[in-house]
């Protein structure tokens, strides 16, 4: 039996990780599989990937994929800062980050906001289930008002919608998806990996243990039945000529991504223009009012400079610049001493 290789001649095994310790049926494990498939399909170099996470169930998952990539399971809510520092140190790395709703919408909301504001070049996978899992099922700040988890009272608080927040902050790639929509999620994940800038994928990923009951608005059944898809998606990789991709029957339009690949948006129902921030916010508000979940590429802006580009750094990653270049010369110090002595 021949082993199937990807475009850089690597088997999928080179993209897998350790055995998951999450609850059987957890949405997060489905997302890990999507990450493995997308990274393999896109032909990303595992050694050039860096897996980043904070603290929580979701943040444990980098141990379960991309075992040949360095990773950093940091502290609660502070993964964006660590990623920012690492991006400055090595601009040749591709950052794939996983966070949860506790990690991003509560303790780490400040860092989330500022990473978006700086347009840090990273894929930010938000595994969003509305509850804290590792501490046994408290509501998180993204829990929907009127939703009820398995134990305890109904949630009476207004949720924080990180997609809305990101759009308002000028985030350059904002998508919402569902862990149960493998096809949609895979296309969006590949597109996010091909994007330059901050790519947020807020994925509703039901917690099978604490928040998958009938009264929950984040249960598998509820999300599946109330998913309003913006488009159907097809990701066309760089190496596939766009003309050779099978055209869908209905209306569609293409978005060209940074690495030359294409995300094809096929119209279903009323069309959504992802360059229109107001339309994106409107879709989110409408869905929320109707207790629905809108999924798909909400907003996309390929024009902004990234955090690293803003720095005017040398092209070579700083981590690879030799020590004698990083340390200014002895002559430069003599010049300074002379100037301080008022003799320059």
């Amino acid at each position: 039996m021949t082993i199937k290789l990807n475009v850089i001649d690597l088997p999928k095994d080179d993209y897998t990780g350790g055995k998951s310790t999450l609850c059987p049926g957890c949405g997060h494990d489905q997302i890990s599989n999507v990450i493995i498939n997308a990274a393999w399909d896109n032909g990303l170099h595992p050694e050039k990937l860096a897996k980043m996470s904070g603290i929580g169930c979701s943040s444990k998952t980098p141990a379960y994929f991309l075992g040949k990539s360095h990773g950093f399971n940091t502290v609660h809510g502070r993964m964006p800062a660590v990623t920012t520092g690492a991006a400055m140190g090595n601009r040749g790395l591709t950052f794939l980050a996983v966070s949860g709703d506790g990690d991003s919408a509560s303790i780490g909301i400040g860092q989330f906001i500022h990473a978006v504001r700086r347009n840090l070049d990273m894929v930010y996978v938000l595994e969003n289930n509305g509850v804290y899992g590792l501490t046994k099922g408290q509501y998180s700040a993204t829990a929907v008002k009127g939703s009820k988890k398995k134990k305890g009272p109904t949630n009476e608080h207004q949720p924080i919608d990180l997609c809305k927040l990101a759009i308002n902050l000028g985030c350059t790639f904002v998508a919402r998806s569902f862990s149960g929509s493998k096809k949609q999620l895979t296309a969006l994940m590949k597109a996010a990996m091909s994007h330059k800038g901050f790519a947020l994928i807020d994925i509703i990923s039901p917690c099978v243990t604490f928040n998958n009951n009938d009264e929950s608005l984040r249960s598998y059944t509820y999300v599946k039945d109330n998913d309003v898809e913006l488009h159907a998606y097809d990701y066309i990789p760089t190496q596939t000529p766009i003309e050779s991709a099978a055209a869908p029957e209905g209306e569609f339009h293409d978005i060209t991504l940074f690495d030359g690949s294409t995300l094809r948006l096929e119209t279903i129902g009323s069309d959504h223009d992802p360059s229109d921030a107001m339309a994106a916010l409107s879709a989110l508000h409408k869905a929320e009012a109707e207790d629905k979940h809108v999924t798909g590429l909400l907003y996309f802006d390929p024009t902004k400079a990234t955090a690293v580009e803003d720095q005017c750094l040398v092209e070579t990653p700083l981590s690879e610049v030799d020590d004698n270049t990083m340390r200014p010369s002895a002559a430069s110090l003599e010049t300074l001493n002379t100037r301080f002595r008022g003799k320059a």
Partner: protein
Amino acid sequence: MERIVNDFQLNIATANGTGSQSANLILLHTMFNMGVPVSGKNLFPSNISGLPTWYILRVSDNGYQAPGDRTHIQIIMNKATWDDDIANCLPGTLILFNTDVKMPVEREDCIVIGVPMTKMARGLNPKLGKMISNMVYVGLLAEILGLDDAALDAALAQQFKGKVRAIELNLEAVDLGRNFIKENADISTIPFRIEPRDVDENLFLVEGNEAVALGSHYGGVGLLSWYPITPSSSLAEGIIAYIPELRTDENGDHYCAVIQAEDELAAVGMVVGAGWSGIRAMTATSGPGISLMSEFIGLAYFAEIPGVIWDVNRTGPSTGLPTRTQQGDLTMLYEASHGDTTHPVLIPGNMQECFEYGWKAFDVAERLQTVVFGFSDLDLGMNRWACKGFEYPETPMDRGKVLRTQAELDAIENYGRYRDVDGDGIPYRTLPGSGLDPILYRGTGHDEDGVYSEKPEVYQALMMRLKRKMDNARTWLPQPVLREEVEKEVGIIYYGSMENSIQEIDDILEDEIGRKVSQCRVRSLPLSPVVEQFIQDHETVIVLEINRDGQLYGILRRELPHELIPKMHSAAYSDGMPPRARHYSELIKNVLKEVSE
């Protein structure tokens, strides 16, 4: 009348934001340019404009740099502190005051000269009258004290960076002051004079924060992430200011990234991320920032990631006295974060060391794969001190045990990210992007291969290795500076900016109790064995520090053998002001009195 030459103190009372700092620095630099040992202390409020500020100039042929026992010349410009400033004058003080403030000065026992400084300055330039009225007192003092014109010209040129119009205008204000004294005062009744001394051509004045900033560049800093906080902001801004000159290639691209972070948590998080990626990264902050950074500091300690944090100590706790000085953060730096942690702390005591530890902190951090603190304070960081010149690092960068190629990795038998293969407590590491033996770094318990573990024996062995790693550093971190007397009766242990008061303390003790004392200036934590030997060798040891609780004394008590503890005594004092020799010499005398009883 007997002249008092090069041995007096000026106190200049102004309001914040009136431009007095320029005038005061011109006075400082003029005297310095004349070869006169002089130091300046800016006592400023936490305020943009309006609140009182004082500048203390100490002129001392003995080289004393801390504020002395009394003020000899008092300049009074500020209505808000008028009465107090006058009341604080001892008999014989020369009082120069601005009559345009229209407040009385009734001191028969002082030499009092009233000058319409604002009116005179407005005559020169109606718009800038308030600003240049400060230059009038520079002129008054120049005439009274006998300041040299060429030295004053050079100081003006430096302060106004050669801007001709500004220099001319300010020089005219100085001349107004000089002429006023010539026409209205008899300086033969005033004892205070400045006389030139041999000028050391190598000496210059610089702030500690600028010295650290430059040192950091010569350490090859690749990322500065920071959040503004007094008194450390000028350290970060110093780094930024030198990037165009020192860290830019021929295309204008930089070798040093700078991020003004959203808070101190993010600032240190970026340092940790950058250190993990393989570059030298730092942040600069003060006590409140360190409090916020503590969680990440523990992560860096446990996951073994290099980084540098400069603490420019201000007076705590809480917001405290944000524009006053202290050595109140030492214990926090040494042990920051929860659980058992220890961090190296480098403690400069002069400008050359500020520069040296600026680059050396990175060598220590990368060699030990941990966060290293530089410990400065507001006094050292924000005041100008004499410096002999900055010395280029004598050694190449110490990048520590980083495996950069497959061959290097293969050469290590039984490699594991956290395995102590050399027996020195320091493991090898590989960098992200290298593809060499990647692991998922974590703040959770981990075994020698970096894999999650909660096993008791694995955790305990890891913690003991980390302790061994730090203990081994005691002999190669910056060692104490000793000055020992033959008799070895009394030994003084001190650190940091206390260096600038120690000579005067020593002279007071010799004068008043007829005893010379040995000195040991600690320059790093964890403590060198030399400190223990110093204590062994002396009959009585007193630890001087600028805090309430005797923080270094506490560390010594915990770490040294029990039999040494009875001979150690704490002389700790803090009121926000720079350390005055009189306070500490009294504390020392009290200790010696108690011991002898």
